[in-house]
């Protein structure tokens, strides 16, 4: 157990590097309104954040992360580009499931963060390089992805709007995504529902149900040709040191021109990172890195993890 003053010292050192990089320090409240966080993260956040009740302010949460309050603050009056940094406690419940781990994760810890609001592509490389430089003494493994690749690949599929939206929605839940992709690639199988007995009950309306039944009992969509789902699978399978992953992405883009632009963006980002003297072979690239843990990103994702400690949480994560 590392004591709090030691942690503070490390945190302050990181914070001062963020300040040197041009960030303005901000200090959001510890008590955050629950509604925005619930809307963004869903029921999952209720399991992870401490929810408390205030007679006047309603349901409040002990700050589970800084991103939401910093974004809100920026939206309320910041001009771009803007750089913010912060250091403070975040609070997370750790539900162990059936077995208590030998080293349970902590319930409160210090988080140091850097937020850059800018529309130009340079920002991605800037943030990654900043984190990489600060974390260099610790010998961590850098992983990177870019959700834009998968999003563009799905947007480019010859599917009905409703099916395309379904795949985009389930991009964050891999098993459900796979099962829909398989279903959309097969010949339509009309479903036949048994008649219901008893009265109508609940808020969901009969019309809502009927529109779903109509769609499922008379499917009109043609199955997706195999090369399309094959392309998605190839994209999902890429996981290699950056130079090799880029080569695979370029080849894939020949068959899937829809991802060409995104591949170009990723390539230019890597050029910038390499130009700063960073060895690209040391970055592991997986297009959908962070797919299950960083749901709100639609561009760059990255994390730094302790090598050989896959069960440990990442030391740092980020994305756009």
């Amino acid at each position, binding site marked *: 157990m590392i004591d709090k003053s030691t942690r503070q010292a490390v945190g302050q050192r990181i914070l001062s590097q963020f300040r040197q990089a041009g960030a303005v320090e901000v200090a959001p409240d510890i008590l955050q309104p629950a509604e925005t966080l619930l809307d963004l993260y869903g029921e999952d956040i209720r399991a992870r954040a401490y929810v408390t009740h205030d007679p006047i302010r309603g349901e409040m949460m002990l700050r589970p992360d800084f991103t939401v309050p910093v974004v809100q603050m920026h939206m309320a009056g910041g001009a771009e580009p803007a750089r913010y940094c912060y250091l403070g406690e975040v609070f997370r419940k750790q539900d162990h499931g059936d077995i208590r781990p030998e080293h349970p994760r902590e319930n409160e810890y210090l988080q140091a963060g850097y937020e850059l609001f800018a529309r130009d592509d340079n920002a991605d490389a800037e943030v990654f390089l900043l984190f990489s430089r600060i974390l260099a003494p610790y010998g961590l493994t850098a992983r990177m992805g870019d959700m834009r690749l998968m999003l563009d690949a799905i947007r480019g599929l010859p599917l009905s709007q409703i099916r395309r939206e379904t795949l985009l929605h389930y991009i964050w839940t891999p098993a459900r995504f796979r099962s829909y992709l398989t279903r959309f690639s097969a010949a339509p199988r009309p479903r036949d529902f048994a008649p219901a007995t008893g*009265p109508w009950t609940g808020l969901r309306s009969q019309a809502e149900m009927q529109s*779903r039944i109509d769609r499922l009992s008379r499917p009109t969509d043609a199955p997706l040709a195999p090369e399309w789902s094959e392309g998605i699978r190839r994209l999902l399978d890429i996981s290699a040191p950056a130079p090799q992953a880029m080569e695979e992405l370029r080849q894939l883009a020949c068959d899937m021109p829809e991802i060409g632009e995104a591949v170009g963006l990723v390539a230019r980002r890597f050029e910038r990172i390499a130009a700063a003297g960073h060895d690209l072979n040391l970055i592991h690239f997986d297009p959908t890195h962070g797919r299950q843990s960083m749901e709100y990103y639609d561009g760059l994702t990255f994390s730094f993890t302790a090598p050989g400690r896959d069960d440990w949480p990442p030391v740092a994560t980020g994305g756009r």
Partner: protein
Amino acid sequence: MIRLGVPSKGRLMEQTFDWFAARGVRLSRAGSDREYSGRIEGAEGVSLVLLSAGEIPRELAAGRIELGVTGTDLLREKLAGWRSHVVELAPMGFGHADLILAVPNCWRDCETIDDFAAITREFRRNHGFRLRIATKYHRLVRAYLSAREVADYQLVDSQGATEGTVANLTAEAIADITSSGETLRANHLKIIGTEPILRSQATLFANLAARGPALDASVKLIGLDRPTRD
């Protein structure tokens, strides 16, 4: 001294008393019906503590009792990391109940958990908020849905009359325990999924940390290593 925690009232208490009686151990309440202290005969070195069934998981984990009788549903809901704290000594064969997920019977298009997932997503788009599931088993339900990658829902707490929440428009679905399914049918609800979220029954648990010669001797006295007399 080994402390045995037993539910302090109702059928669960009576059936627990019967279960031990069949093994030659007589449990009884001391004094009046309203007094929550117990007597135990036929098991030396064991004392009886009468507790609310819902508090037994916490008391076991805290080491304030070494043995305890409660439902698997309550224990798993209330004790995060339960396998690291307690061990199941014996399922007791009564207090059977399944924790299930139920939706309105009129939802003809909801046959499987995949249908349910698709409906939650459409509901959120149509109504602007996440479909509400009323339950008191927050952890178990969340773990079940998370393992099946269902994400577009919210839990609303319901500590009683949970089956009524759908008709009252305070929830769209419920997750609760059921034994016969009568209450579900009466409230026009049907179970989703072929397997329940959890099959529960009254179970004798032991605190893992308390395991040792004294506990083993008590377990022997209670007769868990002998055939029952019924």
